[in-house]
């Protein structure tokens, strides 16, 4: 015990005296968290739209007004030219083109049916689908309004996703609920994610440098000649770095709550407990890498490669459910993935110990495994 504390205390002193690294480790996460949380969003608003109105009627103009009034679209340009509209799409100046044909108003008044062409830039993937559904919603609302005006007394179908009473023979009332994120605020989704990736990166990078640096400067040999055991050595390394990781997490949570209003629905004590286990995993991985390479540079290279894979396949930025099945299976072996789902479950869904039992068990297994690897690979005697 004394041995561990003595070495751990020395580690603390190293950390505190390395001002450059300390700054990187404490300041950079704060800055990145503040700045990048604003960047990481798929929210769709102010979608630029190009309008080709060939009708120039009251009703067609009304349609365009509805689009802008919704706040979801901004009219980037209008003309009578389909070519120009196409150009705008090509140049990425507009994401959607709305083409209202001639005789639009006439057809509506006469027959009650008319067509509008929407061209959406599908490069944007699922965003395109959402843009399209926004537009469809707006048009369908407009239909209803027009129906009331143009054909009063006739029955109108209300899109079931709208709230409110229905008149008609079938009255299926559909209500939509968005659990855990009723305001559909992207930050609530991304901030915990960015926090997790920052804590992961920092803890793994720091631990990966650690042993490699001692090898490079020669102090490892002096330690190897003492009777300290492998387990004591690794534990002494884990302790201060773990505390640092928890500190980073705390600062991050405070920012998440105070600046971004991220809900903290579950138990923070539970979250910290899980984080401690998670840090054992990341730090052990770093120490394992550190022990197997010769220089800090190699350590960083390897760590970086591994971390990128872990982070991008963890469901932090894109959902695990969207990955192909075989990738999802592989993701089960990614400790970051489990930590991400646990932290989101606790913070945003208010989950308790029972609900996170399965991923937690995986993390514990990883913790034991990686720790065992880190201790095992450290050789005090060269063979």
């Amino acid at each position: 015990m004394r041995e561990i504390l003595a070495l751990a205390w020395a580690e603390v002193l190293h950390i505190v005296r390395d001002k450059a690294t300390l700054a990187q480790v404490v300041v950079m996460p704060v800055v990145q968290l503040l700045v990048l949380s604003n960047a990481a969003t798929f929210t769709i608003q102010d979608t630029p739209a190009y309008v080709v109105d060939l009708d120039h009627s009251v009703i067609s103009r009304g349609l365009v007004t509805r689009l802008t009034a919704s706040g979801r679209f901004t009219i980037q340009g209008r003309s009578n030219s389909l070519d120009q509209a196409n150009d705008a799409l090509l140049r990425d100046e507009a994401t959607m083109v709305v083409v209202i044909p001639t005789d639009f108003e006439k057809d509506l008044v006469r027959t009650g049916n008319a067509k509008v062409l929407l061209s959406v830039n599908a490069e944007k993937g699922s965003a395109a689908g959402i843009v399209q559904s926004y537009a469809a919603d707006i048009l369908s609302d407009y239909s209803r309004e027009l129906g009331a005006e143009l054909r009063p007394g006739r029955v109108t179908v209300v899109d079931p996703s709208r709230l409110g009473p229905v008149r008609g023979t079938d009255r299926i009332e559909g209500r939509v609920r968005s659990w855990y994120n009723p305001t559909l605020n992207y930050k609530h989704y991304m901030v915990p994610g960015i926090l997790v990736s920052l804590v992961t990166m920092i803890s793994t990078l720091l631990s990966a440098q650690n042993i490699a640096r001692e090898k490079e400067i020669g102090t490892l040999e002096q330690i190897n000649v003492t009777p300290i055991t492998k387990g004591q050595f690794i534990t002494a390394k884990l302790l201060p770095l773990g505390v640092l990781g928890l500190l980073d997490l705390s600062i991050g949570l405070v920012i998440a709550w105070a600046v971004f209003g991220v809900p903290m629905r579950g138990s923070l004590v539970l979250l910290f407990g899980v984080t401690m286990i998670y840090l054992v995993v990341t730090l052990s991985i770093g120490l394992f890498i550190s022990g197997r390479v010769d220089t800090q540079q190699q350590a960083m290279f390897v760590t970086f490669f591994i971390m990128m894979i872990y982070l991008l396949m963890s469901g932090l930025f894109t959902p695990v459910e969207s990955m192909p099945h075989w990738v999802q299976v592989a993701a089960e072996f990614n400790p970051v993935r489990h930590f991400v789902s646990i932290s989101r479950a606790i913070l945003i869904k208010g989950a308790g110990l029972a609900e996170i039992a399965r991923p937690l068990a995986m993390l514990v297994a990883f913790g034991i495994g990686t720790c065992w690897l880190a201790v095992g690979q450290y050789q005090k005697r060269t063979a």
Partner: protein
Amino acid sequence: MNALRGLLKKEWRHILRDRRTLAVIVLMPVIQVILFGFAIRTDVKDIRLVIVDPTPDHVTLEIRNRLEATDVFHTVAVLPNSAGLEGLFQRGKAEEAIVFEPQFASRLGQGLPARVEVIADATEPNTGSTRQNYAMAVIRQYQRDQQTVQPGVVIATQLRMRFDPTAESSHLFVPGLVAFVLTIISALMTAISLTREKETGTMEALLVSPLRPWQIIVGKVMPYLSIGFVSVLLVILEARLVFDVPLRGSLVLLLGEGLLYILVSLSLGMLISSRTSSQRVAMMGALLGTMLPTMLLSGFIFPIESMPTVLQWISNVIPAKWFVTIVRSIMLKGTGLAYLWQETLILCAMALALLVLSTRSFHTRLE
């Protein structure tokens, strides 16, 4: 010129001798594109559905069947009430729930409204919305099919998805991924090469030699440029073969832009390493400082249009952003230089600026 040639030969020998690093530098982007190309998706599919149906009847069963019949939903549980619902969501066992009011069909028959709730896990807002939309579409369709009365006014929308009829998210991400992996590799490569020399003192020898600073820089950049080019080629090949990402524009243009972009990244790596003497600080700074920002601000995953204006401005400084636009345009839209000359010019300017700054850094080092 001979001095430069000598330097080039030496650099090549260094690189070729270190086979392990070489393999990593060339293979890393290839492996990463494969992994991430599969991992970074936002398509919504395989939605696990929970049905809460207290009194099943012909209407609720019909709606349930229709939901199941789509290939998007599959029912994982049918509950008589909402009691266990929260737990299922928290465990991550289900993403969406349909809750029917009791006595559904009989209420409808009596002319009363019957409520159905569509609950989606909206932790990720867009996925949440999409899930809701899918369910609502099925319900709406059912309702339409029951309609005996004609609606008042219908504005039918004819929808065309341009440039990518499949709208598969991998087509969106893979081009951006190309930019991403190239960025990281290039910056790392130069940072490594330069700081290693600095720390072993051979940099001093180089600086004192008759080689001018610009020659040193060119000599260092050229070999990695060639390696990077091989990477670009391999990665584009992957995008085509493995992910079926279309290449509607000119391959030559794409390769040319790729080369230009690597040059920019290498120069950035140069600049970083010319400013720090400790390899460790350089690498740590390069990694921490460029990884997340590149991922998040380049438009590779998250659309720049969605970001606050301030960040949109900042993203203009990130070379990756321009390259992502270029790659997507060429591959998905088939645009040519006529449309892309602005972005290309910006990249050229960046390369030039970074190289000049690096050269100047080396000058001061001599003094």
